[in-house]
């Protein structure tokens, strides 16, 4: 009697420990990869895992084995042209050596990066580590709300179980038509010619046979187009969405004048990311408005916000005025929680700073849940800072901080966190 044991409900994740060990062991490399990933990420997109790649040689496991060189005599299958004593040019990359590596493989020793998926928790953990968030806050932020899964179209990779047959076959059909169309057109022409030829010369003539041969060849070509290709495969895409119950809008205001270099922008980006992440804990639907400014302000999309560069002077009030206008136009119906975050190097046109103070104090802060200002500079406080400092005393929903490294970002949020946790 055979014993059949159903182990499907045994504990999964037997390898979880091994996975953690792997992460710990290569923390340096992974952290570096995470920093790079943050650079390429949308600030709204902090809640997913991340694909991390590490150079394979960093995590190779050494062993004693043969290297290249010396004499190797190996047997290969599929002889199609050689006889004993033939001398062949050495293929590129010095193939024919080592075990398994084919003689005909035209790539030499080549190492791919080791790519793997970080889970959301692991990613956030590394993200927080740089920011030096206290433990309690980390768990608060990493808390997951209930999501529901819903279908969201199709994607081109996934597990075999999620293959969408109809979509895949439709794609395959399209590809076959497209690849076959030059032949089909030619076939139509030939067919016509054939009919004419048949009428004129009858079945046995040279011309008819030539046409028929060509037709046959073309049909065979169409036959040879693969019926389905991995390229055609489409998978059902399912995403998790929270049902919105409360909503918030977040204004990101950034100075893009010449003095804000890439490094400062990257720092500002982390600041915006953290605020956004924090808001996702409290609100289930968040809109983000990006405003960048030098002497004039402009509402832009995220990509332009972080990646385009301009130079020139700085008039901060232009941005605040734009923010006020958008705020009153779109988000003043009482259903929105408004958050503002401003990043700048503190350099402002002298006469403009008092205007900023007034705008912010009278027309923006009263509508805001919270407004945070970070000045990314190592030097002396600038005039904007002094102006804002007056506001800080009068408004408890305003926070400001000068930052030099990512670790300085967190204190800006301290007040805000206190409120939420309480």
């Amino acid at each position, binding site marked *: 009697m*055979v*014993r*059949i*044991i*159903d182990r*499907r409900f045994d504990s*999964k*994740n*037997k*390898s979880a*420990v*091994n*996975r*953690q*060990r*792997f992460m710990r*062991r*290569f923390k340096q490399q992974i952290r570096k990869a995470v920093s790079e990933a943050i650079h390429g990420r949308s600030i709204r997109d902090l809640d997913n895992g991340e694909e991390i790649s590490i150079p394979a040689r*960093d*995590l190779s*496991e*050494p*062993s*004693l*084995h*043969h*290297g290249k*060189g*010396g*004499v190797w*005599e*190996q*047997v*290969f*299958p*599929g*002889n*199609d042209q*050689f*006889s*004993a*004593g033939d*001398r*062949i040019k*050495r293929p590129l990359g010095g193939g*024919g*050596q080592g*075990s398994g*590596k*084919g*003689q*005909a493989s035209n790539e030499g020793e080549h190492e791919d990066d*080791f*790519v*793997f*998926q970080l889970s959301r928790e692991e990613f956030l953990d590394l993200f927080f580590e740089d920011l030096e968030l206290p433990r309690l806050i980390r768990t608060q932020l990493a808390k997951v709300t209930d999501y529901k899964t819903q279908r969201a179209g199709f994607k081109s*990779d996934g*597990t*075999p179980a999620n293959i969408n047959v109809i979509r895949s076959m439709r794609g395959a059909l399209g590809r076959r038509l497209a690849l076959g169309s030059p032949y089909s057109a030619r076939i139509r022409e030939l067919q016509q010619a054939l009919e004419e030829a048949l009428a004129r010369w009858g079945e046995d003539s040279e011309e008819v046979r030539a046409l028929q041969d060509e037709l046959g060849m073309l049909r065979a070509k169409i036959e040879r187009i693969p019926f389905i290709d991995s390229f055609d495969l489409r*998978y059902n895409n399912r995403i998790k969405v929270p049902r919105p119950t409360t909503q918030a809008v977040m204004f990101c205001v950034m100075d893009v004048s010449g003095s804000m270099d890439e490094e400062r922008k990257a720092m500002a980006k982390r600041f915006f990311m953290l605020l956004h992440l924090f808001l996702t804990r409290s609100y289930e639907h968040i809109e983000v408005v990006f405003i960048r400014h030098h002497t004039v302000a402009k509402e832009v999309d995220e990509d332009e916000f972080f990646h385009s560069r301009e130079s020139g002077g700085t008039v901060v009030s232009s941005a605040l005025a734009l923010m006020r206008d958008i705020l009153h136009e779109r988000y003043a119906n009482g259903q929105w929680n408004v958050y503002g975050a401003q990043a700048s190097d503190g350099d402002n046109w002298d006469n403009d700073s008092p205007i900023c103070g007034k705008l912010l104090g009278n027309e923006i802060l009263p509508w805001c849940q919270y407004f945070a200002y970070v000045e990314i500079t190592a030097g002396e406080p600038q005039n904007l800072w002094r102006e804002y400092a007056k506001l800080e005393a009068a408004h408890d929903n305003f926070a400001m901080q000068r930052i030099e490294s990512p670790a300085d970002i967190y204190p800006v949020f301290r007040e805000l966190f206190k409120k939420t946790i309480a």
Partner: protein
Amino acid sequence: MKTTPTRTRRRAGKAPLPAGSEWTAEAIERYHEEIARVAAHYRLDTYPVQIEIITAEQMMDAYASVGMPVNYHHWSFGKHFLATEKGYKRGQMGLAYEIVINSNPCIAYLMDENTLTMQGLVIAHAAYGHNSFFKGNYLFRTWTNADAIIDYLIFARNYITECEERHGEEEVELLLDSCHALMNLGVDRYKRPPKLSLAKEKLRQQEREEYLQSQVNDLWRTLPAHDVRAGARAEHRFPPEPEENLLYFIEKNAPLLEPWQREVVRIVRKIAQYFFPQRQTQVMNEGWATFWHYTLLNHLYDEGLLADSFMLEFLQSHTNVVAQPPYNSRWFSGINPYALGFAMWRDIRRICEDPDDEDRRWFPEIAGSDWLETFDFAMRNFKDESFVAQYLSPKVMRDFRLFAVVDDDHDDKLEVSAIHDDAGFRKLRAILSDQYNLGAREPNVQVWNVDLRGDRSLTLRHTPFRRRPLADSTDEVLRHLARLWGFTVRLETVREDGTVELQNEIRGEIRPSSIHA
């Protein structure tokens, strides 16, 4: 597929086996019952079978820990898991259909995503093919202990966990790293293990003796008596004979290891030794299992128990498994052991049942013999190297269109040394056999000497085979070795003319921290 024109051989009273793609426990049981019956008909001798149904995720877990159901924890297993998981989730790669464990009872994993056909295929392939090979082949009988392996792995995991608690995860991890680096040189290739039972008793006795001896030595140490012979002693090498099993040598002789570290070295060594026969019998073992799933399922089909749909699906995946792309194909990655093994076993059966003149010339002893007996003999007494040398027939070489290429780094061109023709058959066979010879495949590095009277440095000797050098990672491996040994480690190369040249030297005591890559 053998075709039966009409299904006249259908057995009275036997209902056909369930068809369709969904499997149930009852269906698996019925398949197993029929397959076991046919296997017995072909006189396959197996361990009892235990079938375990697991999910894809669990399959990946098992994958990551080198196919074993339990194993100690180590980051490298995590790395393999991540790599597998990524490949699988992206749909780039399917999982193996089966993992089978050489244990008693023989454990075969069935993945719950597989269709009923695949489950049937896996039962025939793993639970009867591999299983009978594990039980019969001399390498497995000599080197592995199917009754004890699972228990040993549980012991190993618990022991290493305990070490981690006592000495810190980091410490244990570094030790394991070093052991893993030497794993492929941590096996006895030629020496056989001593006979058990009596041997065990002797061992215990020896242990007692050694204990007493150590007491005695301690006493003697205070006496200056044996100074007289010191000069003569210094001439002796230690070890007196070169030692090929580096891990064994470390375990027994490394001066600075603590007892728990020796035990960990021993665990890694034991596991390496357990997998050693599998590395030496790939072609035979996979070919054997493939031959039997093919034969058993066709037998059932001929009896009318299997549906046509089953056969079509089965043959499709069977054909994929035994495909051999030619050397110039994009998909080529060496000789496919499934293809070669399957072809060879099939050919042996053909030689037994229906020999032609060529076969009678090449294989007078098996041509026309009883194929089951010949199979049994071949399965029990060979490994890849000798199996190819003994049984690779001209027909198989012709069918595969095999040819041999010499790649000499002193020559700017490759040379075809033999092809599948009358002049080349024997040469081809010898070369292919050598290709499966682990002795030639892996570098010959042995412990040569320990400077007992001096700085306790350890000297290894590498004797290159056909001038093949060691790979670049050798330096790092030596650092690992030096960490285990605790003193200077040297690697010497013995050149073709017999002179010896110092290749690498890792000096002095290596602190654990400096070995971090």
